[in-house]
């Protein structure tokens, strides 16, 4: 039973990551207790989950083994008090450095569907475990590579860019406007990259949190320009879920025909 539940949880997370384009897909996110902090002894606590509503943990906790936190000086720092609950994971982060921290859940792997004795099965894991992971008599095996990144940002003092350098792998966001300097009524611009290069003509959506208390998602959308840039003018203060996804054939696993790319950020917009 436990194993079954775990597999389901993993699959749910995998599906949410692999299929962000589907309208009914679950949303993966992290929400920090504050994005703008002051004082040298500043901490934030972060919720991380896969859910239907924003930002209410109602589905699965996020996998914190994917957590990568970069401090303003570019170093990798560790979260504290990690906990995986029924519906959400939580962790704490000390933010002693002045500048912007990047908090990311980085997921890179392969996702396979196959048939076994006439039944549809799924498998998710690292590319290197693929062979061992699939039964020898699996039929109609379809392998997809996936690279997704779920991020949020926290800034102590003035925003900085040291933690925001792209890794050059998968889909990433490069801020033109600092991600912790967003105010309602103002326009913010970002650049979307795939493997470090501008990603043109990609649809980007933004949804304000608090979806439980309204009838519609009120999704805003835009498309990246030839330089991969896109902008949103925030209509109101809130925690916005910004998401983009794409598919290509640039796989590094020979069994995989397709690569699914996803990027999600939680961006806080403050009142004027």
């Amino acid at each position: 039973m436990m194993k079954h539940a775990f597999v389901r949880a993993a699959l749910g997370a995998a599906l949410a990551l692999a299929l962000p384009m589907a309208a009914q897909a679950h949303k993966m996110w992290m929400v920090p207790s504050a994005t703008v902090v002051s004082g040298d002894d500043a901490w934030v606590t972060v919720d991380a989950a896969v859910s239907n509503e924003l930002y209410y943990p109602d589905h699965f906790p996020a996998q914190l083994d994917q957590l990568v936190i970069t401090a303003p000086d570019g170093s990798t720092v560790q979260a504290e008090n990690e906990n995986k609950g029924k519906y959400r994971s939580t962790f704490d982060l000390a933010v002693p450095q002045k500048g912007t921290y990047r908090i990311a859940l980085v997921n890179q792997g392969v996702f396979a569907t196959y048939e076994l004795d006439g039944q549809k099965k799924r498998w998710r894991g690292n590319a290197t475990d693929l062979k061992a992971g699939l039964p020898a008599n699996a039929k109609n095996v379809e392998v997809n590579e996936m690279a997704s990144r779920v991020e949020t940002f926290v800034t102590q003092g003035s925003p900085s860019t040291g933690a925001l350098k792209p890794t050059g792998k998968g889909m990433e966001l490069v801020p033109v406007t600092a991600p912790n300097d967003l105010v309602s009524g103002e326009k913010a611009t970002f650049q979307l990259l795939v493997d470090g290069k501008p990603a043109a003509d990609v649809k980007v959506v933004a949804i304000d949190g608090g979806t439980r208390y309204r009838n519609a998602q009120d999704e805003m959308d835009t498309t990246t320009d030839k330089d991969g840039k896109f902008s949103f003018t925030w209509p109101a203060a809130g925690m916005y879920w910004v998401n983009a996804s794409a598919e290509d054939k640039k796989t590094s696993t020979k069994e995989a025909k397709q690569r699914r790319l996803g990027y999600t950020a939680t961006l806080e917009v403050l009142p004027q």
Partner: protein
Amino acid sequence: MRRLLPFAFCLTVAAPAFAADMNLTVEIPELKVAEYHRPYVAVWIEREDHTVAANLAVWYDVRKKDGEGTKWLKDMRQWWRRTGRDQTMPIDGVSGATRPAGQHQLRFTDGKPPLGTLAPGHYEIVVEAAREVGGHETQRIAFDWPAKASTHLSAKGSAELGQINLDLNP
């Protein structure tokens, strides 16, 4: 000797006495609430492009040990964004303890810190208040500097700030 002092004083400060100045009165209203904390208040001057020409006052909880009072500075979110986040607290001659309800008079002189020398132009003086478990309010008064004649300007807060008076002298 005592009689001579005012005269001597006049002589020595005769030149600065001609310096333009501004007198600001900030009223912190008395609030009937179950849990009251004195508000954090920031006062600064913005140029037309919203850059900060001068930080005039920051009242925050300086008593808390280990600088814990700085944790809430970011709640004065306009001040924080325009200038606060670039500052190291305390700011000499600018920051100080929170103040009780009532009228608070501040006087600033041209050429002297914290006002310094403002280039002639159009400015706004901004007063922002944020209160723990309370509200947040910002008031702005636009003015031209230097004033050609003595000028009285004012704004009235509605929640966290009361009457604000700005008197400019050429």
